[in-house]
């Protein structure tokens, strides 16, 4: 009989804007808004009964239209997202939200306003100075601004009550994903990185409630699965927080002898490491959560501990034997952190391997042999 996990993963693999977002809109008559990575306060959209849709890039499509608007030195996700828009493949989205994760995303908001004047385009500025006593009041006001803007799009006010309910829905969704990751650390062979990636990614297109139950069922199925224990080099992936590597790239890593026990793929899907308070002023609660409980990421400044300390801690926590840096080609936030993180790993004597990926990658031989080399180092020199 087929492993129920695989069936669920297959369902998730098929999740897409064309399929799921359109059918959701047909059945509910509601609106949908695209959210550019890494973090956008989707709870506010959800509270307005707007479907938050995670922008995922184009997965290696030809970008003939976008190439005439985006220079050759810009990352795939900016390029392929614009391509989808220009092809009218994002018409299901009534609006877009771009956060200040990098200079590309900042300007993309303006590019979007010019090319899609009939859509709502929001730019949200998330504080880079969380230490400031004024940051919370600012972010609360910024979220308040979004609340009004989305209420206008939804054609209905967004009440605090509905916001509190949405916070709870998202808390549960994040918890389900964190449970899945906990299982990965204990039994990485029970659910592969590629499967986890697909399970989490589906949350970009499906209603949160539906997605949560898929992830919960998937985790249960994985725990129950009778898959053979596999040996391999336990590694952590770092640097793939925004644009996502091709699924085939992840599979290549695992086939070549790695057990991926932790990663920052889809980090925006599990942005807070604990529940957001659901009592009191929901916008203030969300603002505090962003300022105090966000994970360490290249696109956010102001953590108590440095990014290097955070990475080393992740390696220790997941009992990993090495780190695989995976930066999207041209991704400045990831590429700028790399030398600093690398130095820290060397101080700690943690082996690492470095890759740059892009959506259009189609040949994985070089990736495979580099990973094999990385694994051989421990195989021949125990």
């Amino acid at each position, binding site marked *: 009989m087929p492993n129920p996990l695989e069936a669920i993963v297959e369902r998730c693999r098929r999740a897409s804007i064309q399929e799921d977002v359109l059918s959701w809109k047909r059945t509910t008559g509601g609106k949908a808004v695209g959210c550019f990575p890494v973090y956008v306060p989707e709870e506010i959209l959800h509270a307005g009964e707007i479907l938050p849709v995670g922008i995922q890039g184009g997965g*290696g499509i*030809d*970008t*003939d*239209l*976008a*190439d*005439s608007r985006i*220079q*050759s030195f810009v990352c795939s996700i900016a390029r392929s997202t614009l391509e989808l828009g220009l092809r009218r493949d994002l018409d299901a989205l009534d609006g877009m939200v771009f956060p200040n994760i990098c200079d590309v995303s900042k300007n993309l908001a303006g590019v979007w306003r010019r090319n899609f004047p009939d859509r709502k385009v929001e730019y949200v500025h998330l504080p880079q100075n969380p230490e400031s006593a004024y940051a919370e009041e600012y972010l609360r006001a910024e979220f308040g601004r979004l609340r009004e803007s989305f209420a206008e799009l939804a054609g209905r006010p967004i009440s605090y009550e509905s916001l509190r309910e949405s916070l709870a829905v998202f808390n549960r969704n994040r918890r389900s994903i964190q449970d899945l990751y906990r299982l990965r650390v204990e039994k990485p062979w029970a659910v592969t990185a590629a499967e986890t990636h697909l399970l989490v990614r589906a949350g970009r297109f499906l209603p949160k409630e539906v997605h949560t139950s898929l992830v919960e069922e998937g985790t249960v199925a994985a725990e129950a699965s009778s898959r053979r224990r596999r040996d391999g080099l336990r590694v952590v992936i770092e640097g793939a927080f925004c644009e996502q590597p091709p699924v085939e790239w992840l599979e290549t890593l695992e086939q070549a002898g790695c057990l991926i026990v932790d990663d920052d793929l889809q980090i925006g899907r599990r942005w807070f490491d604990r529940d957001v308070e659901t009592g009191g002023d929901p916008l203030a609660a969300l603002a505090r959560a962003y300022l105090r409980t966000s994970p360490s990421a290249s696109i956010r400044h102001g953590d108590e501990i440095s990014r290097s300390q955070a990475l080393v801690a992740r390696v220790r926590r997941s009992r990993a034997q090495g780190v695989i840096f995976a930066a999207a080609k041209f991704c400045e936030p990831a590429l700028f952190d790399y030398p600093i993180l690398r130095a820290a790993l060397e101080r700690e004597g943690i082996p690492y391997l470095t890759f740059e990926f892009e959506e*259009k*990658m*189609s*040949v994985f*031989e*070089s990736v495979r042999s580099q990973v094999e080399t990385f694994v051989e180092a421990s195989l021949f020199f125990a």
Partner: protein
Amino acid sequence: MLVAGVDVGSTATKAAVVGEDRRVLGRGLVSTGANVVRAAESAFRQALEAAGNEEWEISHTVGTGYGRYRVPFGNSQVTEIACHAKGAHYFFPDTRTIIDIGGQDTKGIRVGASGEVLDFVMNDKCAAGTGRFLDAAATTLGIGIDEIGPLSLRAQLQLRITNVCAVFVESEIMSHLAKGRRVDDILRGVHLAIAGRSIALVRRIGIENEVTFTGGVSRNPGMVSAIEEKLSTRLNVSPDSQFTGAIGAALFALEKVEHDVRAGH
């Protein structure tokens, strides 16, 4: 009265001799090779012989192309962008857009009703997607550069080539061969990849009909069909397309002479 144009490109050097009646009387074509000056002279001589004339009868010569400042007998220089516009307009008066794919440059030119340049774009400092990419693909497959175009037309299925870098195309082609893909399908993919890249570039200035395809690569039927498929429009391609720049240069020479005559000196 005769005038001439010499177009010194990175791979080939072309020359054209034109008469007062704007008729093309002679053409010359040599590969640029190691010595630009020699190439310019021999192409020029070829054209003169074809026109049945001697050098001293030429009243004005315009040099164009990368080597335009090294044409020793050139009276003046014009960039190949203006010359291609002029030449294409000469062949096809209603053309408004020109796509020119050369050895290491891809250009898009928007031209006005009288063949003047309204706007243009060129590829950035990366040779990806230029004629050189076709050479690399041909070498990798061990097929002559003139054969790949016709061969690509026999393709049966759409195959995507994602990497348009001339350095990396080899590994991508190799992996397709390893998967047992057919050579003509691969070549079709190669041509479509360059077509897509070139069109993306030209879109920056807006593509208006009629579209004329010039430059060395325009002689490749596979490239013509690939661009036509991607643009879903017919392309003007002159049998003289390789001489577009040289003929344009000669026409500028003619205008110059006429202008000077009018100006009375």
